[in-house]
């Protein structure tokens, strides 16, 4: 299965939305850089991400979450990974699609 990375804030850009149209059940979605704003509770796209979590595994890059001061708002069930964990994910999934 694919690992999809999202590096743009879904609050201002449609990359996540297109990704979710194409991503298959069982694939992984990793939020990095400004994309981590997509992994938070209480925003207008929280429900979209929570729905995606029912069929896909969702991750967020912890160094980027912490840099932005939103570590206390990550949606429950989103798995935080560090850079080492990011590398592991790219080996566990078959390949990586970066939604630039």
């Amino acid at each position, binding site marked *: 299965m694919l690992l999809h990375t999202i*590096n*743009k*804030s879904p*609050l*201002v850009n449609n990359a996540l939305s297109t990704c979710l149209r194409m991503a298959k059940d069982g694939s992984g979605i990793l939020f990095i*850089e*400004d994309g981590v*704003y997509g992994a*938070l*509770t*209480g*925003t*207008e796209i*929280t429900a979209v991400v929570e729905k995606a979590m029912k069929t896909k595994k969702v991750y967020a890059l*912890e*160094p*980027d979450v*912490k*840099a*932005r*001061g*939103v*570590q*206390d*708002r990550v949606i429950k069930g989103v798995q935080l990974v*560090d850079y080492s964990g990011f590398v592991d994910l790219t080996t566990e999934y078959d390949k990586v699609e970066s939604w630039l």
Partner: protein
Amino acid sequence: MADEMMEPGGGGVTKKFLYVNRKAPYGTIYALESLEVVLIGAAFEQDVSMIFADDGIYQLKKGQDTTASDMKNFSPTYRALEMYDVEKLYVEKESMDARGLTPDDLVVPVEVKTAAELGDLMENQDVILSF
């Protein structure tokens, strides 16, 4: 924060300067370099306002910690704006609501205004710099 090579001062002219911040911090450099403009601009003693809207509001989020990503945490600098007499900081209500944020989440005191109010404010400026 930056080298400065000219004498500050606007030759006696005072204009209303508005900085519009709509970009998240760290993902791109706009937030950091825009803040450098505001700090340098403060020496010119103009009438300065700042609007934070869309992801620009996240620039002011409390609790930023860039240790693990090895970038420069510039959020404390917003607290220095007051010393530079930059005190008119506005956040857009609609953008705050879309992100579930309240003024308590932010590192500096801000005034929450609706988009319509900010539209009036914009019309009342002389120079608008957007980043």
